[in-house]
């Protein structure tokens, strides 16, 4: 089965991204395909490389980056939601005159069309929110 995952909340504030991560891992272990993980609303905050969580707790951002690397996942952060919340890549930095970029490894910023496309091309869309 081809899954598309939507994450609507940011790291630590809500359990949504944790649940999405555990679901994604379990789906991969079962041999399913994860077509895309799309981060929307505050979910875009999962894509910042500037977090420094306490050492004795999980590192949510790094966990996604590592899973993406291990399984060649497509982690997409919505551009409109990212612009509102300050998640910036090289292109956005240049285009919008920002002083820095902060997109985490394995994540890319793209349009809402990627979510729609994921809905069309996958077999199941699973949404994690609050």
């Amino acid at each position, binding site marked *: *089965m081809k*899954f598309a995952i939507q994450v*609507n909340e940011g790291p630590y504030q809500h*359990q*949504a991204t944790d*649940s999405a991560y*555990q*679901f994604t*891992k*379990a*789906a991969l*272990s*079962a041999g*399913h395909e994860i077509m895309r993980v799309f981060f929307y609303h505050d979910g875009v905050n999962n894509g910042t490389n500037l977090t420094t969580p306490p050492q004795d707790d999980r590192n949510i951002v790094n966990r996604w980056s590592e899973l993406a690397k291990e399984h060649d996942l497509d982690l997409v952060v919505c551009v409109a939601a990212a612009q509102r919340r300050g998640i910036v890549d090289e292109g956005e930095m240049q285009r919008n005159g920002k002083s820095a970029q902060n997109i985490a490894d394995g994540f890319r910023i793209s349009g809402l069309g990627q979510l729609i496309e994921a809905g069309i091309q996958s*077999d*199941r*869309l*699973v*949404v*994690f*929110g*609050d």
Partner: protein
Amino acid sequence: MSILHTVNKSPFEKSSLNSCLGYAREGSSVLLYEDGVYGAIKGTAIADKISGLSGVKIYALGPDLKARGVSPEKIVDGIEVVDYAAFVSLAAENDKVQAWV
């Protein structure tokens, strides 16, 4: 077509579980996870409502129950405790997933 309904908020915090149960038709499944697992506990104000559903199978996510200190014997009879692998299977076996956030 069967739906897997997911509920992740406590029924005492939000009306999401209540709304979900209004939409869960015969043959569909409901998975309680995150704070939604509080809806699976015996003896609460909503326990009768959740155990009184015919034709709808209710599941609760084990890891979330455990995290919240809810032991298996405290769960309403008939609610099946499952793990993340089963969550994935439920999503695959039903035609689509509806998230009641």
